[in-house]
């Protein structure tokens, strides 16, 4: 009952009656790796994952946001007129101060919430128009790091990570094996922490466990909120290197990065503009920034793209 067993996790969409999504998804490369590629030796083979689907005719953008707006009741809108296009295999960093709409944007991309205006398209399909059950299933093909990690405190580190694989349809033993590999990948000592309940872990370890859970299914789309929060510089650099290797293999990454609020940026802000024009390369992974050189950034402020 966890999920239908198939090579591509998105094949359930056909059964769910959302016409055309699978074809679009195949073309865009959404979906976890075909199961035959999950051998015992290649769970995370130095994270040199081969592009899992030929994407010669793939559309340019995997995710598209068209004039998206999100309001919560009578409060000021969390997102205003966001238009954004994210290509397959792109590493996009959404930067902004607290309460600028970064987490809201990620929740919209994950289908956890629906926009109050505009459209969020995943592989050309309007996410808000999918059935609720379909959106739930779709998240099996995503790796999501929510704000506040959302780990099950009473359960062990290993089970927290393996749970995501098990829900995606992986047998129990294989789920545990992948969980160990994922934890090892992000630098969590499985021997030391694997059996420990999450409740007593340090914030940095918890955060890495949550990242491991996002990676354990080798998803085609990674949505990572505050990915370097709670991590020291070395750990942050390590985690970002790992994620960058996923990007190299064709995985699309959208990560948020919290920065200090700078009022002068607001004054500089012009009317929201389209994204492709506003994407700018981050500083190379050098002295100041741990972010990979390939990563491109947009800046959000008060729910608007300002640069």
């Amino acid at each position, binding site marked *: *009952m*966890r*999920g239908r067993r198939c090579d591509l996790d998105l094949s359930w969409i056909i059964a769910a009656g959302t016409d055309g999504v699978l074809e679009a998804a195949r073309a865009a490369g959404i979906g976890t790796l075909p199961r035959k590629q999950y051998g015992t030796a290649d769970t995370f083979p130095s994270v040199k994952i081969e592009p899992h689907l030929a994407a010669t005719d793939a559309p340019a953008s995997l995710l598209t946001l068209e004039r998206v707006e999100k309001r*919560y*009741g009578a409060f000021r809108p969390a997102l205003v007129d966001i238009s954004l296009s994210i290509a397959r295999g792109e590493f996009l960093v959404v930067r902004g101060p607290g309460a600028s709409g970064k987490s809201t944007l990620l*929740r919209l991309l994950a289908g*956890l*919430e629906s926009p109050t205006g505009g459209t969020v398209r995943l592989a050309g399909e309007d996410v808000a128009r999918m059935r609720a*059950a379909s959106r*739930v*299933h*779709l*998240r*099996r093909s*995503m790796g*999501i790091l*929510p704000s506040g990690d*959302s*780990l*099950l*405190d009473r*359960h062990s580190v290993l*089970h927290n990570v*393996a*749970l*995501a694989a*098990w*829900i*995606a349809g992986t047998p*129990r033993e294989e789920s545990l094996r992948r969980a160990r590999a994922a934890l090892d990948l992000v630098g969590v000592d499985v021997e030391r922490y694997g059996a420990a309940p999450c409740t007593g872990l340090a914030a940095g370890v918890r955060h890495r466990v949550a990242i491991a*859970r996002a990676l354990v299914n080798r998803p085609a789309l990674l949505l990572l909120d505050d990915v370097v929060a709670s991590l020291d510089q070395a750990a942050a650099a390590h985690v970002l290197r790992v994620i960058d290797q996923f990007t190299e293999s064709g995985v699309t990454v959208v990560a948020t990065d919290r920065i200090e609020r700078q009022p002068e940026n607001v004054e500089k802000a012009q009317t929201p503009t389209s994204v492709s024009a506003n994407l700018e390369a981050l500083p190379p992974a050098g002295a100041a920034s741990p972010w990979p050189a390939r990563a491109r950034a947009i800046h959000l402020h008060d729910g608007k793209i300002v640069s």
Partner: protein
Amino acid sequence: MMNFTGGRLSALGEVFAGIFRRPLSFLLSIGALALVFASAIVCAAIARALPIDPPSWMQAQALVLVAGAEGEVDLAAVRSAISQVAPVAASEFVGRDVALARLAQRKGLTSIGLEELKPNPLPDAFAVRFAPGASPDAVEAAIAQLRKLHNVEGVEYPPEPYRKLSTLLQAARLVVVGGAVFLGASLAIAIGLVAAAWPRVDAQEVEVLHLLGADPAVVRRPYVYSGALYFLLGAAGAWGSLAGAAHWLAPALGDLAQKYSLAWSMDPPALGTGLAFCFFAACFGAMIASGAAYLAGRRVLAAQYP
């Protein structure tokens, strides 16, 4: 509660683990549920046994004797006057000849030649029936009024039987009300106990499973199994108790029936019926638990993702 470690069997294991963590609470819940089920079965049996309309013997009746023969008296006027006296519910004219014929057909009177009696000494009469539930005082006041009506020679009404019957009915009503209060209280206690012992929906778990794309059925499964188990055992307990009580009371009730010359038979409850009852109770419990878990999960997610 979480059933990560497997599927249905693991969910069932979680349910049993929860039971063993709080066995006393579980037993109390099952006992209370069994009490509710047993009360419901008894109520259903009583409701099925009792007639919908009150039988004629539960109504006060009187015979209004008309002064004079048919043709000499305006019977329509008498009937009209009778019907206007409260709490008269109905009246039926019984002519003297019909009355004599009925009397002659009674056992023990056939041989004495009543039909040959000339002239017929019986008067014309109206058999009057009072409204069900009318108090004896009201009936006796109405009798007094009937006696005063024009062209009424007299009223035959023995007051004692209806007074006794009325007292008995009041006592029975008290018993029924007391039983209903007891049933309601036991139902409230049962709901409280079951709610206290029921596995809690873990908000964090619901949120995480939703985030990771778990089927809602995976989240609800342990609660559904728990509901089915509680109701199954409660129903089995109720059915077993009633079957045992019936088996134990059958000889005594049989003797009592024989003593009062009543036709009485008490068939033991059929095993098939009991099994079907337990099955439907389990389905009902699963349905309630599924609905409750669904609503709780939806509340959690609505708070998390408005």
